[in-house]
């Protein structure tokens, strides 16, 4: 089922972190609405179960300094707040503002593969916001289209056509690597994570961040449909916050209006009507033709069969026959097993978001940051990256 947390949501659903010192739970009423840093710290002390004296010891302050800070006679320093944040597993920003982004809430309250994906999305979103602050904003380029009229599925279809037109204007080959296409044409960041099974992807959107997180998959067509689906959410302006899709093909999920629109977008974007009509032509599709078309579009035979039936290009009986194929079978029937294996290899591979990697490197290159943010993003030790970059390479002495 999809899960949506929207901007402005302040309800804290639980506190899954279990530190040995501050094993307490928070709720919106007791903490998030409090007006000052001192109030929030006072409440953290109370809920920690520690005496004020013990709490002061834990954060390296004497009783007098803590009392003054709590009473407004002294401000908490940068170090004080970092030590409190570290002790109580909150953020410095939250201590100062009391505001917690939807992703942060979701990260605390979600377990399993989805929780892992959300925590990574939170980390990447923070990096993107910080990069924007340094002058490297998300290069977000949605197609300009009015979606206020028509049904949900119709809106998704029109949005997809506008998106495809944008792809063509940019001169990008539609069937190229879709992750790279989404980044190049629309300016959204796409990360691929090894999350195990049970989670397809998520999209998160704020003013500064447009990010899609996908799970690695041995079913490339499923990963591709998930990406198009999440792109549909972003382009439609759904869910200012975070949108989870644990099972993008879930039938109950498909009844939700924004899901219906995102699914319609994905179907039209990946399987354009004119392409399908041209493929069917006047002679219709043999099973081998159908298999080849599924390989061309890199979609599951099931999805393609339903799309063809929906466009009345095949009848129900043919749909039932075609949909029984798997992607592997289709590749075999079409004689494209090697190509299929290559797609499986690619979709099984984790990948950091390309635009964010580009921008963190650029920020380092112009001297705005150290090399660490870039090294962290690509998951390599910063000293190893520096050594590699500093060593002249590529020359081969054949003498």
């Amino acid at each position: 089922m999809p899960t949506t947390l929207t901007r402005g949501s302040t309800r804290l659903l639980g506190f899954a972190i279990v530190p040995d010192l501050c094993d307490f739970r928070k709720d919106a009423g007791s903490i998030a609405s409090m007006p000052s840093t001192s109030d929030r710290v006072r409440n953290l002390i109370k809920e920690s179960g520690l005496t004020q004296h013990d709490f002061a010891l834990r954060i390296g302050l004497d009783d007098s300094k803590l009392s003054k800070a709590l009473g407004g006679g002294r401000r908490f320093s940068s170090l004080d707040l970092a030590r409190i944040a570290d002790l109580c597993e909150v953020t410095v920003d939250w201590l100062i503002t009391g505001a917690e982004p939807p992703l942060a809430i979701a990260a605390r309250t979600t377990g399993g593969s989805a929780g892992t994906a959300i925590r990574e999305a939170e980390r990447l979103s923070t990096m993107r916001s910080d990069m924007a602050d340094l002058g490297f904003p998300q290069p977000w380029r949605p197609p300009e289209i009015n979606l206020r009229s028509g049904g949900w599925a119709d809106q998704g279809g029109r949005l997809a056509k506008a998106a495809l037109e944008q792809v063509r204007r940019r001169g990008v080959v539609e069937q190229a690597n879709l992750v790279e296409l989404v980044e190049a044409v629309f300016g959204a960041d796409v990360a691929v994570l090894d999350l195990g099974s049970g989670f397809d992807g998520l999209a998160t959107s704020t003013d500064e961040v447009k990010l899609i997180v996908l799970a690695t998959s041995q079913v490339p067509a499923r990963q591709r449909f998930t990406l198009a689906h999440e792109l549909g959410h972003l382009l439609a302006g759904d869910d200012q916050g975070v949108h989870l899709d644990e099972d993008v093909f879930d039938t109950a999920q498909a009844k939700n209006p924004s899901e219906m629109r995102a699914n319609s977008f994905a179907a039209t974007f990946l399987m354009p009507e004119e392409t399908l009509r041209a493929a069917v032509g006047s002679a219709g599709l043999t099973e081998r033709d159908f298999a080849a078309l599924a390989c061309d579009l890199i979609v599951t035979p099931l999805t393609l069969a339903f799309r063809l039936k929906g466009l009345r290009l095949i009848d129900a009986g043919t749909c039932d026959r075609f949909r029984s194929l798997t992607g592997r079978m289709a590749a075999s029937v079409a004689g494209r097993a090697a190509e299929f294996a290559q797609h499986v290899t690619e979709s099984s591979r984790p990948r950091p978001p390309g635009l964010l990697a580009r921008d963190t490197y650029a920020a380092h290159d112009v001297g705005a940051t150290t090399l660490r943010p870039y090294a962290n993003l690509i998951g390599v030790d910063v000293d190893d990256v520096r050594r590699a970059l500093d060593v002249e390479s590529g020359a081969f002495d054949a003498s």
Partner: protein
Amino acid sequence: MSTFPDNTVLCNFAAVDRLDLLQAVLNGRGRWTATVAYEAGRSARFLPALASIATEGWLEEPIEIAAEPDVQRVNRVRRAVFGGTDDEPLKHLGEAETCFVKEWTAFAGSWWIGPVSSTTDHAVSSATEPQQKSSPTSWPARLLPPVETATTLVRQ
């Protein structure tokens, strides 16, 4: 003109028992932020000589950053410039604080001695100013390469 040694540099000198040499080089101009002092205090568990810096006071009182907008700015610099995360709020905080206070008028033109990974590959002058990008020509003009400096000084 002040000089801000990073905790790594303090540890380097303490490890070879030559903090006196660093003190002499700084010649009364050395300063540290509250977090660098805190880091040195923690490092003193393994390098006891570090405790003498605070007791002898040759880096003066640690500089505290307390205005909330400044604290938020330091936290953002810590993440964006030094690769820190919200999960570890103390990581790279000393570097971010130093980077920030170097921009204060009182410390204009000061030097920072720190690890190569923190200093020599980015422009400190631009890091605390949002929405501004520096050019390669603004790369650190006032950063001493720490390891080389420490090595050179210790050899004398």
